[in-house]
């Protein structure tokens, strides 16, 4: 390495834009994330947990938000997924975390979503779970899964 240069981080970073209500593309970002994890060679059980967290977060942006991104930072020790969107935000996080609580309208339920299980599922599969939201502004969900 050249003198004076900062060591390059070995983390692999990716960013995927997600559009609200785009049900054709919905799931593609998570599919790409899963594929990347498979190429790197994580154990199937770890990949599954990350894929579930990514997919539920992606679907929450598609269903409940206008637009957002999924950002992943992958190192040999951990998989970090940050799902951030620009609104409408969650007025009551405690309520949103309850199993079965959903504001999804009928036409979303007909598509197979709106069980109110997404956020509890994400929490179940993750080692670190941080949900921040400002009503009227947007939501940021950070999930970390340890490779162990």
């Amino acid at each position, binding site marked *: 390495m050249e003198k004076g240069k900062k060591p390059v981080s070995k983390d692999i970073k990716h960013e995927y834009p997600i559009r609200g209500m785009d049900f054709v593309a919905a*799931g593609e970002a*998570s*599919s790409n994330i899963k594929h990347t994890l498979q190429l790197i060679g994580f154990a199937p059980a770890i990949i599954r947990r990350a894929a579930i967290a*990514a*997919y539920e977060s992606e679907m929450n942006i598609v269903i409940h938000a206008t637009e957002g991104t999924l950002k992943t930072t992958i190192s040999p020790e951990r998989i970090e997924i940050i799902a951030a969107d620009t609104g409408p935000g969650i007025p009551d996080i405690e309520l949103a975390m309850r199993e079965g609580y959903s504001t999804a309208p009928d036409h979303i339920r007909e598509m197979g*979503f709106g*069980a109110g*299980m997404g956020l509890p599922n994400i929490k179940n*599969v993750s080692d670190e779970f941080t949900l921040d939201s400002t009503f009227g502004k947007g939501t940021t969900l950070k999930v970390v899964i340890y490779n162990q």
Partner: protein
Amino acid sequence: MNLRELCKLLEAKMHCCEELLEKEITYVCAGDLMSDILMFSEPNALLVTGLVNIQVIRTAEMLDISAVLFIRGKTPTDEMLELAKTKGIPLLTTDHTFYLSCGLLYEAGLKNAPMKTDKNELKY
């Protein structure tokens, strides 16, 4: 039981991935709401559903589902077939009802896919 035997039992038709006919199935999960399905923690299960859209295939992909069975004569769209083929997920259809399909599978000894509780324990 493998997919070939499963097709016979349910008078089901396989719409893609015929090379996987010998694939063994031990667990079954069933439902029409995808997040209910995404709680199941056993890979390589059969997913039985009455929901027909592309997100069913996405859900199956994320969960490492072995095959998807659509009940009561519901057939997958071309778009779903294309995605299932690239992901190597066999799609099956039967004319049987949801209840009868699950009943026959249960009777044949297939197990209920366990769910993970919030205490990280497996619930059967």
